[in-house]
């Protein structure tokens, strides 16, 4: 008998169908990955197993966990099962822990609420569990607060909370999406070890197909609340039946045809750029100390060149981006665009650069229409176009990014995430800048949408001879859309070179560890050839 058996589960919220007749099983010691794009219902599936659904949700079907149907179980019995029979790990470790309680209190709470153990017993058990997840008490005492830990360490605490009572099933909802690649690799290893040690079942929700292929015994692919395909990982990867599954995997490994770079005159030149942040005074009369976020960075981008900037969180890539845009002063070195310094005294250089940010929802004023949004940079021009000239420019730019000229009169909320990112690109493109900075510009997008946006970039490069700096933590994307790549760590560029060379033959140990940690999709075309 399987540990978890979901049968014909359907959920509606306010008459909107969320899940449609979902059925799958998990056996003890098995890792099942549920994957799909946003809105596919994968997280709702996870929440239905622990029955923490929104109050307005209506469900039919069965969720049988360890022989008991969770759907019909009364609330107090459910509370009993949660944390004891089934544990859950969430996506965002920064917010999943209570900021005003120690990690010891939060882990031992799982134990106390179910077993009635004394405080001392629960604390001792919590210390053991934290040690098991890699937070030994001599270095991470129980009295630590969440804000004293890094993201990866916090996720370990969340995992400790979930496995403290050795549940039979662990649910992990995008457990590594918010983490850096090297941390992600460690957390995934930990989850795998726990599954084999405890014989737990693991229900893993993730959009990252490389992680899926690497971890899962079985894969469940969902779209629009339905399961389109499921099967053993190897078999499914080798022989995908459903066109959607094929499309997902193809989009994930999408290679972009970049046009060859044109000329090689330097466009952006950074020389020994230093950025210091003042730290708060430690006492009233002490001198201010400063933190050096960027430590003497030098590199060049040529006209029409596409350069990637890769590094983990906190390495200084955002700081560097702001410095290049002239949004923050630098304390040493120089930044020149086309020979002119980038600073507040030279607004002319600013118009040569535009930026596209990660969050397509947060970077627009929701009360402005598209034409007003994308024409914002025009004020940088000496003679901004007026009247029909202006509307022609709007239409032309919207067409260039794959939208319709009619979209100019719409508001941002009327577009999907991918379309909004197109609007952001249109806004950057409209004054024909020489350089665009893409700051994690495709990180929030679903794989299929991401593939389209990357293709759009390739088109724009061919049409406009665009140069860009593509900042991302996603190595495979950087590899496919850049000519050259810079690897940044702790405020320094540790390695740079042609993208193909750096990824194929990394020299610096840090680059090597980054590439080793990044999960890769197995090359199926070759595998099928062998079979």
């Amino acid at each position, binding site marked *: 008998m399987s540990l978890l058996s979901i049968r014909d589960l359907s959920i509606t919220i306010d008459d909107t169908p969320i899940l449609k007749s979902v059925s799958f099983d998990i056996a003890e010691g098995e890792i099942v990955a549920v994957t799909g794009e946003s809105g596919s219902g994968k997280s709702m599936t996870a929440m239905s197993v*622990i029955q*923490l659904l929104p109050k307005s949700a209506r469900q039919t079907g069965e969720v049988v966990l360890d022989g008991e149907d969770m759907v019909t179980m009364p*609330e*107090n019995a459910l*509370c*009993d*099962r*949660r*944390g*004891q029979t089934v*544990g*859950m790990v*969430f996506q*965002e470790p920064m*917010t*999943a*822990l*209570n*900021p*005003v*309680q120690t990690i010891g209190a939060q882990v031992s*709470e*799982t134990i106390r*609420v*179910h077993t009635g153990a004394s405080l001392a017993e629960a604390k001792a058990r919590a210390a053991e569990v934290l040690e098991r997840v890699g937070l030994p008490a001599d270095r991470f005492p129980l009295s630590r*607060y969440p*804000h004293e830990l890094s993201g990866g360490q916090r996720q370990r605490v*969340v995992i400790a*909370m*979930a496995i403290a009572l050795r549940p039979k099933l662990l649910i992990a909802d995008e457990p590594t999406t918010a983490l850096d690649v090297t941390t992600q690799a460690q957390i995934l290893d930990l989850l795998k070890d726990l599954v084999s040690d405890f014989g737990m079942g693991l229900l893993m929700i993730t959009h990252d197909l490389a992680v899926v292929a690497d971890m899962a015994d079985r894969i469940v692919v969902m779209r629009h609340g339905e399961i389109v395909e499921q099967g053993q990982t190897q078999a499914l990867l080798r022989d995908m039946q459903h066109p959607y599954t094929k499309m997902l995997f193809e989009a994930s490994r999408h290679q972009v045809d970049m046009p060859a770079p044109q000329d090689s005159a330097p466009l952006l030149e950074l020389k020994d750029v230093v950025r210091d942040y003042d730290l*708060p*005074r*430690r006492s*009233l009369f002490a001198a201010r100390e400063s933190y050096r976020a960027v430590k003497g960075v030098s590199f060049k981008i040529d006209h029409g060149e596409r350069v990637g900037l890769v590094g983990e969180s906190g390495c200084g890539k955002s700081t560097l981006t702001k410095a290049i845009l002239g949004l923050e002063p630098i304390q040493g070195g120089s930044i020149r665009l086309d020979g002119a310094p980038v600073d507040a005294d030279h607004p002319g250089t600013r118009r040569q650069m535009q930026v596209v940010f990660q969050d397509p929802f947060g970077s627009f004023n929701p009360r402005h229409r598209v034409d007003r949004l994308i024409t914002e940079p025009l004020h940088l021009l000496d003679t901004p176009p007026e009247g029909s000239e202006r509307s022609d420019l709007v239409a032309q730019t919207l067409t260039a990014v794959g939208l319709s000229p009619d979209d100019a009169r719409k508001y941002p909320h009327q577009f999907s995430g991918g379309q909004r990112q197109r609007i952001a690109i249109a806004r950057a493109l409209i004054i024909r800048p020489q350089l665009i900075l893409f700051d994690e510009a495709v990180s929030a997008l679903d794989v299929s949408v991401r593939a389209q946006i990357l293709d759009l970039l390739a088109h724009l490069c061919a049409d406009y001879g665009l140069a860009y700096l593509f900042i991302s933590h996603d190595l495979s994307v950087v590899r496919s859309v850049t000519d050259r790549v810079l690897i940044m760590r702790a405020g320094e560029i540790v390695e740079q070179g042609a993208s193909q060379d750096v990824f194929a033959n990394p020299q610096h140990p840090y680059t090597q560890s980054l590439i080793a940690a990044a999960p890769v999709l197995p090359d199926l075309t070759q595998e099928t050839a062998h079979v």
Partner: protein
Amino acid sequence: MLRYTLKRLLSLIVSLLAASVVIFLLIEIAPGDPASFMLGVNARPDTLAALQAELGLDVPKWQRYLNWIGGMVTGDFGTSYQYRTPVAQMVADRLWVSLPLALFALVLSTVIALPAGIFAAARRGQAGDIAVMGATQLGVAIPNFWFAMMLVLVFAINLGWFSAGGFAGWDQGLFAGLKSLTLPAVALALPQAAILARVMRSALLDVLGEDFMRSARAKGLTERQALWRHGLRNALIPVLTILGLQFAFLIAGGIIIEQVFYLPGLGRLIFQSISARDLIVVESVVMLLVFAVIMVNFIVDLAYAAVDPRLRLRT
């Protein structure tokens, strides 16, 4: 935590000094010489000079400031121009009314507001929530002097449970003192409680949507357990802010209610002293109020750190 406390203490002292300078300058700018005001327009110049010397008005301004501050620190607030009695004594008498009144009102408002806010938040959108929110809307809207008069009408005149005004004095016993402060405290507490309840409710609702509340439920806590163990302490942070502001208001802002109930409090003292141009009393009482407000802020800062460990590191 010690470092944090010391820093707060330092900022408290700096604020007090700054406030004292501002108060002193404002009173100096105000037209009218107390000595000539006391003696009237027909006073002889030598009498005037003598009185000025007696009041300590004949020395340079900076020296008067230092004398005043030095006196405040040692408990000598000077002598009232009008009554010729030590200001410290006058203030102390009034403080024994105003401070208990403010505390009484604060306790009342907290005791009413926090449970009401929690009750409403736990029943978001249901009848209980709507009823509590309706009541707080009313509480915010009703002017407290009108409410005070209604209280007098019902509980003092019609029912005769309380006296309509005046203060019995603490020498009549704790109960008698509290009894005469009850109606004023209720009148002061009502709008405060209404605001506080709304803050409590919305703070708690914000916290209920947080990820760590979901984590708590996933551990097996019931809704109620999650609310009490994880929700409340996080929700208290904005509530503390409002509570601090309210206490400051209750100490300084009781003037109208003191007037309605004929209470010999600080508010009335300051009102009368301004009318009589008894500037030394005004100066001292205002400084005292500033001191109280800054002290309350200091205590709220410490309470923040006690509730939220993240603040203990911050400078």
